């Protein structure tokens, strides 16, 4: 089964990349963009069909590796 993990910076953490993109969009003349925060997405393919098992595995993956909880938070989504 397929799942998506989204890892984003905690809101208190500075995001210079997002800031740079804001600036670049402005100078490219893209209108209306007020702020941008950049994060990561992981599209994961898992064995089996049980959502609970998959969710447990992904939670473990996030805690152990995919997110650095010092600065990041994560969310797990199923299609």
């Amino acid at each position: 089964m397929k799942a998506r993990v989204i890892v984003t910076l905690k809101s208190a953490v500075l995001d210079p990349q997002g800031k740079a993109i804001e600036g670049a969009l402005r100078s490219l003349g893209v209108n209306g963009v007020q702020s941008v925060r950049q994060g990561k997405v992981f599209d994961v393919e898992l064995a089996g069909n049980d959502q609970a098992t998959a969710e447990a595995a992904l939670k473990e993956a996030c805690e152990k590796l995919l997110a650095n909880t010092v600065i990041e938070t994560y969310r797990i989504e199923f299609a």
Partner: protein
Amino acid sequence: MKPAVILFPGSNRERDAARALKLVAGAKPNIVWHAEHELPAGTDLVVLPGGFSYGDYLRCGAIAARANIMTAVRAHAAKGGLVLGICNGFQILCEAGLLPGVLVRNARLRFVCREVLLRVERADTAYTKAYRKGDLIRIPVAHGEGNYTADDATIAQLEHEGRVAFRYARADGQIDETDGPNGSINGIAGIYSEKFNVLGMMPHPEDYIEPEIGPTDGRGLFESLAGALKAA
């Protein structure tokens, strides 16, 4: 002294580190493969060298921090053993939880390779006895993600406990926060663990050791280690 330099896939300054240990400290470092479970018997210094372990994929140092050998490195550190992480090694130490905080993208969002001035914050540790407190030393940096950050409480604690090892400084000795290479909080270039046995630093002292090549201010760090480990 009996150093072990850990080799992760993608490490690329392991030769530089081993050369510095040999030339300055007269040591014969063991190169230890990441998949090993044990450090060579008698290891008294572990060096996590610079480079791009696992290509810096996901986050710098994240994957290497979970390698087999890191369990042994953790145990070594817990016993008070010396662990030096340079550049990618510093990132690995943070990811492994051996040092607090995290290194994020340089404030200017670009890789930077240049010489910086470092202010030596204390000269009473195993890594810095050959320097004097307040010395300004010339050392190169070469990294894309050396911007040290942590929550306010952690920073306050580091400062309170005197655990900042080096700061980016200007020629007048003042901290260089705006013009520094990466935007680190308080100009932090390197920090110690609580017991001062673990040091993580972004700059590369191992590349400034030979007069034929350039400045030699990096020697002090390896001389200090040689002294500390001979005395021990």
